[in-house]
């Protein structure tokens, strides 16, 4: 049975919700503690949220309970706005200053695929992982269906992690980003092979609704 966990940054706090809609508010420092100090400087906020949700709700355990293997569970990530928060204060209208300010982790932290990389490496998951950017919910549903591990008769097996993570900065290079509301949110759903396409469709809609009112 699909379970969904959510984290929204609201007014400088992290508001978590589990599958029973039980809300818990944590400080941003507590979110950092879920990740561990070693990785903090290397990852974007969206990546941090993906990791925090995984840790807080002990998804390894739920994947096992649901009949999956956390070391071979496919991952589908939705990320449309890359990880601009990681570099937003280190880019400048002066090209030389931008080059001088680039740190060692920009090459890996900025990319949309960073989030899947973080999750697979941190949790030793060698399953197939992909990151997608689309406004087409039906294409997302089909992508998720297609990414499940299958048995010899083509039936879905195990579990699949579907996550949507964004942290859209208010400013880049000192200028306000136009036509958009700065938002930071993440949702992680764990599907099981028993979840029907209607459940997947409803869950995709619940993820995509987070983008409502992001663009002006």
């Amino acid at each position, binding site marked *: 049975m699909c379970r969904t966990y959510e984290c929204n940054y609201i007014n400088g706090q992290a508001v978590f919700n589990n599958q029973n809609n039980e809300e818990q508010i944590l400080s941003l420092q507590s979110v950092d503690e879920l990740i561990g100090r070693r990785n903090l400087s290397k990852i974007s906020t969206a990546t941090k949220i993906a990791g925090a949700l995984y840790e807080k709700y002990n998804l390894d355990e739920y994947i096992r309970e649901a009949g999956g293997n956390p070391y071979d569970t496919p991952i589908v990530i939705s990320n449309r706005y*890359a990880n601009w928060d990681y570099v937003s204060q280190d880019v400048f209208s002066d*090209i030389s200053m931008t*080059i001088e300010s680039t740190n060692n982790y920009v090459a890996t932290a900025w990319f949309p695929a960073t989030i*899947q990389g973080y999750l697979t490496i941190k949790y030793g998951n060698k399953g197939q992982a992909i990151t997608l950017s689309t*406004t*087409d919910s039906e294409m997302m549903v089909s992508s998720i269906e297609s990414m499940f591990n299958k048995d010899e008769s083509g039936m879905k097996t195990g579990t699949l992690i579907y996550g949507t993570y964004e942290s859209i900065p208010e400013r880049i290079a000192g200028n306000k980003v136009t036509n958009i509301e700065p938002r930071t949110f993440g949702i992680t759903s764990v599907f099981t092979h028993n979840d029907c396409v209607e459940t997947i469709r409803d869950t995709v809609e619940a993820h995509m609704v987070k983008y409502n009112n992001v*663009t002006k």
Partner: protein
Amino acid sequence: MNDIYIESAAARSPLGNNLDEIWSNILAGKSTYSKATLPGENVYFAAECEEGSASDISVYSKLYSSTIVDLVGQLNIDEHVEAVFFATAVGNLAEIESDIYKGNSVSGNDLDFANVKNVFHEIDHITSNTKIITIPTGCCAGMQAIGLARRVMDQRNIKSAVIMSLDFGLTPLAFSAFSMVNATKTFNDDTQESPSRPFCKERGGFLFADGGGALYVKTNPSNKNVPKITGYGCVSSAFHMIDICTDGASIRKSIELALDEAKVNPCDIDHVNLHASGTMQNDEAEYQALLDVIGENIPDITTYKGNHGHALGGANIIEIALTWKMLLDGKIPPTPKGIPFDAFEATPPRQEPRDFQSHAVLKTASGFSGIHASLVMEY
């Protein structure tokens, strides 16, 4: 699962503005590189589709959208396209950086990778009914786009699609970011050769390039005598964001999955087009994977990044388009002139193009975040 047939293919790279031009230069053993000069005495090796363009971001920023339109035009499509699978690493980063360096505000619409649909919707035969999805996973994105297309087309009964991978990522932020992780080299006027020397003992890291490729694919074409994708495999290494474990185990696994799906035996693979990014780690890992799966008798290989560098997400489909061309042309190109290809005995250099009939090609790729993908193309 239905195979997908490649009806037409297109490419643009630093070796040419279309697939025929690039192929002709590859058959001649040509390779290319230049330099990008950025403010602050920052000069980097680069391979550009338009020489000198990366030195001026306001010029460079226009190439992303215009090349998408150009590549679809090269495919000669004369009917409605049902779906587009668009693969990239950095998307329209150059457009965004151009705004930043002009001192302008960035628009949130430009930050959205899904908004590439607006570029596609300007193209004939791609309409608001066309399903469009972006796969922004970097250097394996083109392979992942093909793997996804194969499954989603089967599931949704989509008969025709454009699969494109493209990057114009030679921007100041990208140059400096890759330079920080020693992926690229600072340009040196004394250098007489390209740093991109895959499968050579003396390698120079990867040559940062731009460009892209596109395929027009169908599940049930009227002419089935064209190359088709019959197998695909993809895994995560769970090892490192940018390093590749030289035991080649993850690459091997992706190859085994692709062969299994295609129902092709390793001994039936008669050509391999490798990722061959030009780093020692990549070479050792890919070579070991080939030894483990195919054995000592490795078939002829091609490694096009030695010719025109590494266009990040754009590279996969440039290479697949060239492989498609190779199968139809019945010729295997030489290895690039001036590159000794001396790292491994089982993968020797070729001095001249020669006639070549291939029936089952293996293609491999590896990317950031530990993605490894392989596919089988049969003809």
